[in-house]
């Protein structure tokens, strides 16, 4: 009996000594919160190797902002100091979220929008008699019979039937314009689904790299990502994708995935970029942090974090837009499609 009790006591002691996990309990103070945030980025952020020229040494960033953090008297002050540190990464996928604000780096705020949403809903374009399939707004433009699709967000889903119906509606069109201006991204799967309907044959669309360890240069080898043709309707006629600086993340990915297609032209302004894939973590104070943990490179292995240059760069003529409800970028796309038809 005594031996049994001794055995049980030993087991209980073994469990007690290994079950505390006190080392994982973090203080909710300025230093711990700051260091936790800095370490998350230091160990998990994927772009350090690609942004050597634009990001100051991350240890120096820490020193600069830590001294500022120590001077904070309120959590609100601390939030903006830490948000400022994250903005040093110049990455729209990196945010600090609290109950009162979301820190963000606005890469394209100093650029022209090249897009006025009200104009595309005038009678010249979508008007009020447009169709809508899932998140896709579409209409056959007259008199030149050009299909126009406006997709404002890759967060809004559409089904295979939706896109099949859209493209069937355009079966007699001379060409299709896919307008993703202002599209800030969303689901990667939506981007790949849409791209697959403009892909007549299996195409190398991008490369993928992911953080494999805590070191800044710990990145996986490039993995080729191919887009397979969709099972449904595939449009292989003249296609123009309209972009501007607000095209970001999944919308940027869509742009780089269709760019290798010979029947696709990118028209408008440079995209906003955002080729990282974000993941999340959190701080002891309850704020969450989002950071880029993996990278999509384009089909030539180039990083598109800072955007994709269009094949035809066109700026929006604001005067025409405001006075005549004319979107000069759409008009350029229409004329390009008209010219494309004349080619053999």
């Amino acid at each position, binding site marked *: 009996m005594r031996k049994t009790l001794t055995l049980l006591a030993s*087991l*209980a002691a073994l469990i007690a000594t290994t079950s505390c996990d006190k080392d994982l*309990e973090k203080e909710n103070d300025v230093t711990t919160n700051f260091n936790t945030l800095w370490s998350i980025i230091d160990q998990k952020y994927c772009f350090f190797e690609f942004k050597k020229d634009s990001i100051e040494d991350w240890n120096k960033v820490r020193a600069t902002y830590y001294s500022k953090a120590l001077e904070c008297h309120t959590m609100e002050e601390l939030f903006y100091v830490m948000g400022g540190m994250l903005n040093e990464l110049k990455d729209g996928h990196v945010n600090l979220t609290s109950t009162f604000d979301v820190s963000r780096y606005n890469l394209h705020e100093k650029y022209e929008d090249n897009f006025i949403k009200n104009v595309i809903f005038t009678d010249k374009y979508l008007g009020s008699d447009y169709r809508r399939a899932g998140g896709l707004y579409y209409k056959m433009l007259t008199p030149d019979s050009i299909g126009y699709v406006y997709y404002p967000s890759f967060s809004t889903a559409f089904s295979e039937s939706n896109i099949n119906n859209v493209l069937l509606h355009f079966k007699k069109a001379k060409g299709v314009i896919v307008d993703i201006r202002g599209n800030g991204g969303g689901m990667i799967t939506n981007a790949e689904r849409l791209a697959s309907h403009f892909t007549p044959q299996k195409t190398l669309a991008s490369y993928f790299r992911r953080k494999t360890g805590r070191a800044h240069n710990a990145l996986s080898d490039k993995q080729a990502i191919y887009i397979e043709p969709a099972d449904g309707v595939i449009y292989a006629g003249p296609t123009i994708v309209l972009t501007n600086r607000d095209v970001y993340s999944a919308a940027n990915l869509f742009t780089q995935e269709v760019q290798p297609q010979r029947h696709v032209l990118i028209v408008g302004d440079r995209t906003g970029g955002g080729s990282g*894939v974000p993941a999340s973590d*959190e701080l002891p104070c309850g704020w969450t942090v989002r950071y880029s943990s993996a990278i999509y490179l384009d089909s030539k292995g180039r990083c598109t974090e800072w955007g994709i240059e269009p094949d035809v760069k066109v700026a929006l003529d604001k005067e025409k837009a405001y006075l005549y409800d004319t979107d000069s970028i759409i008009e350029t796309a229409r004329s390009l499609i008209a010219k494309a038809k004349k080619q053999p």
Partner: protein
Amino acid sequence: MTKKYILLLLTLLTVRHYTEAQTDSTATPPQYRLTTKTTWASAGHHHTYDEYLSGLLYQGAQIGLGFDEQRYYSATHRKFSKYDGAALHVASDLSPAQNYRMLSLYARGFYGAHYHTTPIGRLKLMPGAYSNLDLGLKYLAHNSNNPVNVIANTNLWLSLKSSYTFKIKKEPIQISDHFSIAAVGIMFSPKYTQLYYDISAIDNFEGNFVLTSFGNRLQFRNEFSVNFPIGRLATINLGMVAERLRYDVNKLEGRNLEMSVKIGVVHNIYSFKGEERIPAEFINVMQ
């Protein structure tokens, strides 16, 4: 109100074990063969650290429901028994700032065997081994692209049961302890910062099933319990369970602790050959 719930729980557990007792009584091997079934519920402390989901330790509570069974392989040589069962665990843990909740849900099935020996008096030792299959997930809603981590592992456990039986006022009481430790296994784990989208669409599970042993995964479980009869209606099993998991797989660390109070209903089922009724001396006898 609480008493009502406890009464309801006990009633449900009792109903289940009587239902199974009737189906099992048809077996008629030579002499007798003992099957001990325990249907149980548990509740207690739970905390978890899953670096894939969060760098913080989440703490909360868990409840479990399950059954286990010990059955002699042979009626003539009662030296070996099989051990199997299943359980369902649900845990809810809060972040240190108490503003986010992580939910865990997993089911466990296990199967194994023990060797029975009686080295000293009424002390019984039962070394053995069993294997488990755990399937479930952890969910942290606020994460953008990494809100879920899958729980999927199978292990070979080394196990030691011990029990000691004595009587208080002619009623048999059994205290027992069951310690087990996972020796080797296979565990599913994402790689460092790998999203589930990458796993399914790009990497195709390459490197996600990892061979584990003491070097990268330590998991052990201890259950201390007391069995005591309530009249001739049922035997109650009251115990404390602690299960600990610690791993460092694919450069991701994780820890888990469950410490629960467990209450169950035990039913000893005897199968006899040539006997139409259960001999009186077997009723409520602890093996």
